[in-house]
């Protein structure tokens, strides 16, 4: 096999694509890598199938690999896996460009989207139907939020960084839920009456929904928003406008790291694999001025990037 094979997350795909394309253009003696889309889970599964010509070399993932997965990897012979963190993906709220400005805090989101709220000390089905019932500063719009579906890694971030963070746990405890686990569960339970719409497709689908429902609020990746800034207006979270800078510095709260995993055993075996990874990690690719950053990837701080390069060069495995 003379072609690198990459599979995995569709969030990482656009970045991997840019890198693969430029890699092919720069290293003309190697073929352009093939980058599959299909989700982190399926990608890691293929990755963990074993070592050899007929298995893939790299798995893209929008979440860290799980212990379980690593274990089954090792069982199948993939004992040495190198982890590479390429940067961060910001998660933003946006509305139609013609709408008013939005300033959200996690509590607003929790109150608008949670399945159950504590009202007057009792746990009841979420009674809010309009945003301004949640927070008078918000517009008088019917609640209609397009949030990532459960298949997406983003959903997890959404739940932990917003719902859980905005959840009034004390009130829940006061309402009679003693168990911490139970509280955690209640916090992240999302209403199912059609006000919060799961989107299992990509952000284009969310955009289409906002297009057809001008008073909808959608959750997007930062990259996607930036590419569609002429159609969307972004909301601040806790007063911070999401941007590569605010995310990189950690001011903007909602973001997640993106990864890929390399099969170390393949490094000298698949022509170009090593060069590809190095090329990917180069500042020309993932630095703040790089095409990936232009596309919307939030670059990791300089030290972290250098750390990644060093770790890879040193052959550090998980």
């Amino acid at each position, binding site marked *: *096999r003379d*072609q690198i*094979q990459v*599979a995995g997350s*569709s969030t990482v*795909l*656009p970045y*991997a*694509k*840019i890198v*693969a*394309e430029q890699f*092919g*253009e*720069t290293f*003309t003696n190697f*073929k*352009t890598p*093939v*980058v*599959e*889309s*299909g989700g982190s889970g*399926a990608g890691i599964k*293929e990755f963990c*199938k074993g070592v050899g010509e*007929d298995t*893939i070399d790299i798995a893209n993932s929008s979440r860290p690999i799980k212990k379980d997965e690593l274990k089954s990897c090792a069982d199948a012979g993939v004992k040495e896996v190198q982890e590479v963190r390429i940067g961060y993906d910001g998660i933003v709220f946006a509305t139609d*460009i013609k709408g008013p400005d939005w300033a959200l805090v996690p509590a607003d989101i929790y109150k608008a989207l949670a399945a159950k709220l504590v009202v007057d000390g009792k746990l009841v089905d979420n009674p809010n139907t309009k945003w301004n019932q949640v927070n008078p500063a918000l517009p008088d719009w019917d609640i209609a939020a397009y949030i990532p579906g459960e298949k997406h890694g983003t959903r997890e971030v959404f739940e932990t960084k917003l719902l859980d963070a905005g959840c009034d746990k004390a009130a829940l405890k006061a309402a009679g839920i003693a168990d911490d686990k139970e509280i955690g569960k209640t916090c992240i339970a999302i209403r199912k009456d059609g006000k919060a719409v799961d989107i299992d*497709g*990509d*952000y*284009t689908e969310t955009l289409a929904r906002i297009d057809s429902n001008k008073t909808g609020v959608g959750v997007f*990746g930062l*990259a*996607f928003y930036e*590419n*569609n*800034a*002429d159609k969307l207006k972004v909301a601040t979270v806790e007063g911070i406008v999401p941007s590569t800078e605010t995310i990189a510095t950690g001011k903007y709260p909602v973001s997640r790291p993106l990864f890929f995993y390399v099969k170390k055993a393949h490094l000298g075996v698949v022509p170009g694999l090593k060069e590809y990874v190095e090329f990917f990690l180069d500042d020309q690719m993932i630095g703040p001025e790089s095409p990936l950053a232009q*596309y*919307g990837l939030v670059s990791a701080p300089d030290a972290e990037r250098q750390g990644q390069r060093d770790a890879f060069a040193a052959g550090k495995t998980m």
Partner: protein
Amino acid sequence: MTDIPLDTMAGAVARPRRDIGLKARYAAERRFRIYGVIAISVGLAFLAIMLITIVSKGYTAFWQTTVTLPISFDEKVIDPSNKRATDPSVLIKANYPKLAENALVAKLGIDPANKPMMLKLKGFLSEGARVQLRDIVSADPSVIGTTRDVNILAAANLDSAFKGQIDLSVDEARRKVSNQQIDWMNKLKADGVMAEHFNTGLFTYGASSRPETSGMGVAIIGSFYMMVIVLVLALPIGVAASIYLEEFAKKNRFTDLIEVNINNLAAVPSIVFGLLGLAVFINFLGMPRSAAFVGGLVLTLMTLPTIIIATRAALAAVPPSIRSAALGLGASKMQMVFQHILPLAAPGILTGTIIGLARALGETAPLLLIGMVAFVADYPKTPFDPATALPVQIYMWANEAERAFVERMSGAIIILLVFLMAMNITAIVLRRRFERRW
């Protein structure tokens, strides 16, 4: 046929006659006919709506903006230290975009020292210029030092602006094209240097992360391979299986089982065929991932039930008297089937093929798990090389963040439909030839 409107009542009839409820029956007849017309109109209306939506969104994708620039292949830029004789990689790594930029700067009369202006120029021309110019140079290294007019692709955003798809009323900061760039664009347009050309790249380029250099080339080849495989496998196997089941198999529990089974396979979600392909063809038989060959096999399995169901129905519709006639002359059952029944069943078989292939041509889900939903930039040389397919390209472009891809996606849909029609036309002509009323 002497076709006389059935809805006119016999007015001339004078004598009182037996009442056979004609009035009501004619009303029923008329209603029935109207239902037919309505049904067809509904179908055609939806078709029209779909086609109009697709075409109106996608036709612009067939044009692409380019800037014709006199590129001077400056040795100082390409090979500053004059090492190309010893190190061929110089020509590969050279800063080709710079050549294009220089030419553009000269054309627009910008002062190269004016940094802010130069910065605004960024993103005017496509990054694809690198490959384009490099190909020119590696094809003929003697161009170095000469000047030549080259059509350089404009960047996707400028292309959109040129086609008037960018809302200039939006705040400049929120757009991808600055006012300065618009001014330059208008200037170049007025000079006749910047113009739209037929977008051959849409048909020839492979996948790319840049809208302007992305095309369906790999997808067309991949789909072509897959359709050939599906046609070559599914049609004969499907027809053979139907013949066996309909004409030869004894009617018993076991063949009932097969029949139910085949019908059932038609209801299996297409992604499950992908699972099967992954398990059997890739994991068990060790075939390569992302290959059109495996895709073709998976789509074959997916298409088979459709063809079998259609073929069996068509075979069953041939009247038994034809069978007796052939057998009575001493034809063997094989001969009877292949020489008499099959030609008469051909229209139905072809219809099944058309519908089956149409679906196979448009499916993405089964290809997902065998790695064909992928970014593939290089042309596949054989069906065993990585490739994508038309619907995959559509699906992937539909999910792109950059707007320019939406247009390409609609263009791709048009190409797919044309591909489909081209594929169907033979079948439709054949079907008409075989059609026979008796």
